[in-house]
């Protein structure tokens, strides 16, 4: 009797009675969906592989780099003359942004004890990264525009040794302004502060990285074998763009020293290294390119899908909410884009536009938004009739509020479920375009490696087909498995059928 009493709550409030004593709070929709996704082994496999890819995408410069981490120049008696850190001075602003963002930002989001909620922290991190990225893109656009400009003074400025820093600062401030206008989170004062700090820091990084000291790798490797320098290399002393003409098409597992046939190499860390996955027809390391290409694949998948979702949801929401002639007109545009043989037009566009990552992201996004638009339109047509929307309209809320706060969160689920498949499709398209030789210039890409597997001479280099091919396949499969799991978890029709 006394034990039973101990279990009884001391006092019961009216609210608790209403909820039911001992009842636990129901899981939120997304938490429930997430648990269902996690219950599927296929989805877990997908998440694991995507995380691995993400890790390499961020930290590839620290794992595979032709610049040594530490370089000691030795005097004749073997004492250290000077010590430099070429790897650090050669990191690009993008590298810095990704590595700092991932190594500080992610722990802050997942393990932080700040007073902010996790979703708020995710939003802040995403906004800051997006804005830093915007700074870099803008500054690159400025540098590119000034180098190709017809104005002589602008060209002269772009040729300055330190880089055209005033333009970059302008770009940083502009992006800060943009990020401020696009609402993120926090009070206005904190927002300005955060935005300003990131813009200035990333702008300064862009400027500082304007003219890194040039290191001659071949020279360095020769000097190392002669004992004039001592270098601490990364795990893979090879950048994707670094090729050695004496290491062409070596099979996986070849030791560098065995190929270079110079006794001096045998003892050096560079010579002791094995090309674990072989080298390509130009003498570049396959593993290094494989790791660096994660960045291209992941970023193209995410950004182009982001663009297509943004366009699709906007147009779909307009069609579904306003109906009538807006719907009629916009649906014609959707029909045109649906009838377009997408891959074909992408091939044309990628062929004639500049070969550049951002252009590729943009064109993939611009030609693949019809699915999102149709899903959103159907959902909005349905939700428009529902009581809560009618109530919101009846209370005289502005259209913006009805659309953004009431309808959007309820109508965007089918689009979000579909994003995983869209990312898989974008990765496939990137691989295809790169395979056809229409991919971004100067970037390691799985598709490009795949195309070099069947060389013009007719020989087939299996390690150039199998390893990048496997990487493409696993990435696409991961996103497809994840998408499948998400669809099963969220689609109420299927869930009902399963019971």
């Amino acid at each position, binding site marked *: 009797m006394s034990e039973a009493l101990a279990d009884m709550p001391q006092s019961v409030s009216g609210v608790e009675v209403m909820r039911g004593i001992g009842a636990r709070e129901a899981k939120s929709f997304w938490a429930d969906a997430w648990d269902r996704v996690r219950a599927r082994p296929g989805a877990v496999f997908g998440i694991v592989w995507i995380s691995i890819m993400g890790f390499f995408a961020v930290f590839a410069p620290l794992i595979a780099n032709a610049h040594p981490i530490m370089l000691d120049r030795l005097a004749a008696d073997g004492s250290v003359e000077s010590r430099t850190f070429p790897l650090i001075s050669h990191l690009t602003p993008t590298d810095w942004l990704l590595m700092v963002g991932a190594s500080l930002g992610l722990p802050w989001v997942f393990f932080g004890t700040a007073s902010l909620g996790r979703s708020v922290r995710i939003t802040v991190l995403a906004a800051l990264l997006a804005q830093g990225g915007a700074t870099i893109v803008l500054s690159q656009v400025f540098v590119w525009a000034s180098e190709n400009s017809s104005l002589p003074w602008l*060209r002269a400025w772009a040729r300055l040794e330190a880089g055209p820093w005033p333009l970059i600062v302008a770009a940083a401030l502009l992006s800060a302004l943009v990020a401020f206008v696009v609402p993120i989170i926090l009070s206005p004062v904190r927002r300005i502060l955060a935005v300003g700090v990131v813009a200035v820091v990333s702008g300064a990084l862009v400027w500082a990285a304007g003219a890194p000291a040039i290191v001659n790798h071949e020279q360095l490797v020769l000097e190392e074998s002669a004992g004039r320098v001592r270098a601490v290399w990364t795990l893979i002393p090879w950048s994707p763009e670094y090729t050695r003409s004496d290491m062409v098409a070596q099979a996986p597992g070849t030791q560098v020293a065995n190929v270079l046939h110079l006794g001096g190499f045998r003892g050096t860390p560079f010579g002791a290294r094995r090309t674990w996955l072989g080298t390509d027809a130009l003498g570049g390391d396959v593993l290094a390119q494989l790791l660096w290409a994660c960045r291209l694949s992941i970023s193209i998948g995410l950004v182009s899908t982001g663009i297509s979702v943004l366009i699709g949801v906007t147009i779909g929401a307009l069609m579904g909410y306003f109906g009538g002639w807006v719907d009629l007109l916009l649906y*014609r545009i959707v029909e*045109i884009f649906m*009838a377009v043989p997408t891959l*074909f037009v992408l091939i044309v566009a990628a062929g*004639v536009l*500049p070969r550049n990552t951002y252009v590729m992201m943009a064109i993939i996004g611009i030609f693949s938004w019809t699915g999102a638009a149709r899903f959103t339109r159907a959902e909005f047509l349905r939700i428009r009739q529902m009581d809560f929307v009618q109530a919101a309209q009846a209370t005289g809320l502005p259209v913006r509020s009805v659309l953004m706060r009431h309808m959007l969160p309820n109508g965007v689920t089918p689009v979000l479920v579909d994003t995983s498949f869209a990312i898989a499709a974008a990765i496939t398209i990137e691989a295809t375009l790169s395979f056809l030789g229409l991919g971004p210039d100067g970037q390691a890409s799985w598709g490009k490696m795949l195309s070099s597997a*069947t060389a013009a001479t007719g020989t087939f280099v299996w390690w150039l*087909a199998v390893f990048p091919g496997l990487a493409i396949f696993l990435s696409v*499969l991961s996103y497809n498995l994840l998408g499948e799991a998400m669809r099963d978890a969220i689609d109420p029709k299927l869930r009902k059928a399963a019971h």
Partner: protein
Amino acid sequence: MATYLIRRLLLMIPTVLGITLMVFLIVALAPGGIGAGLAVQGGQMSDTSKVAQMQAYMEDRYGLNDPVVVQYGRWIARVCPVRFGTTSLESPSGERIAVPRELPEPPMQWAFPAPAAFEVTFTPQSGDALIEEFRTLQRDAEGRRRTYVGSVRAFKDALADHVRVLGDPWTARLDPKGGADPNNFRDLPLGGGQPAPVPADAAATWAKVNAAAAQMHQAWSLAEEARQRATIAFAARPFPPAGVEVIRDVVSIDSPDFGVAFSRNRPVWDLIKTALPVTMLINLIAFPIIYLVAVPTGVLASIRRGGVADIASGFLFLLLYSVPVVLAGVFAIGFLANNQYLGWFPVSGLHDSAQATMTFLPHTDPSGVWHRGWLLDTVWHLALPVLCLVYGGFAVLSKQTRASMLDNFNADYVRTARAKGVPRKDIVISHVLRNSLLPLITMFVGIFPAMLGGSVVVERIFTIPGMGSLVIEAINLRDRELILANTFMISSVSLLALLLADILYALCDPRVAYE
């Protein structure tokens, strides 16, 4: 139904126009514009004045110097079978009939005054003779214009050489590519001491500049005279009649004209006529295979839902669906076709090089040697390309079949049939399957454009001379006519496929009525 068909066909027109306009704008907005491929070709020539002449020729021939919208409008006017008026704007040899363009002024007139303007008078002929005469005059005018443009370029090059000899303060004003814009050199020391004498060490180059200027002025006079003659002849309307008149003097009908490909110097239509059947052949072989494999699998999976066949086929097809065509193509050509490994299939092409001597069917000749014949040879060549096209469709179609079968299994009429004691086999085949086939027809819509795109890749990998190879070639050479015509054909074919799917849908399901 007829009204629906007409409406759909009419709606296809703006859609095709939209797609081609989009592609046209993409090509036009690209750096270097539409003529970029020509510039690349010209860039291999060492003589810059020849490059300038070549560019002027291309501009005349294809109207590349007009605004993008005008160029697009002209393209549409050529492709559209319905023409306004009864005359052709092109001469029988494919040249545009147009007023010869005004000549650019000779540069640097403050130092080298241009020859005085003059007026040419002559009476053009009439009738068919006029058309012939105008063609000669137009060619003449264009040719002399090109010579003039080339001489301007040569003058600018001579000027640049001279400036380089002059040295430091002047060289900074050269273009980054090393050319000289005469407007940057208004205060250049001129001969005759105005405003400062030419330095002695630059006398040789200065003489060359003077000679180039004289040549340029002579070329200008000749070109101007030819231009005025052609203009007068043009005023007499030298248009050949074309097409079949529908409304007298207002509307006529003519066959679409896709123009001449820059890069091959052949009519685009000829190129498409040989390439399109190849692509259609591959796709038409692939389609039945997809349906024959995927539909039975989907049916089996739905009958034993959750069983081994269901889970295994779902997993296998998802795996296959995740393999990009490029990957499958490279693996197929590397491991199955390359002689380093299995070497079972041919590496490239659609036919053996000895196809002309082959019999149609396989046969054994008197000496007992077996010949595979044309038919088997083609199948052998097509095996890998078709394989690469089909596997991706399996997952989509079998998933759809399964879902649609399951929907019908839950329907009331199936329960009724079961209650009546209809055998299970009959329920599956004549009740459920028949009703589930409808959504599969619409799947055609989803798969077909994707397959056309996929066949670009497959044709590229297996070097098959179809539309895909033509597209890649057109893009690499920036051949405007070829790109546009390919876009037009591919989008028309995929739109027609969509229409066909809708018609089939209406034919199969009496409930569907298009009004």
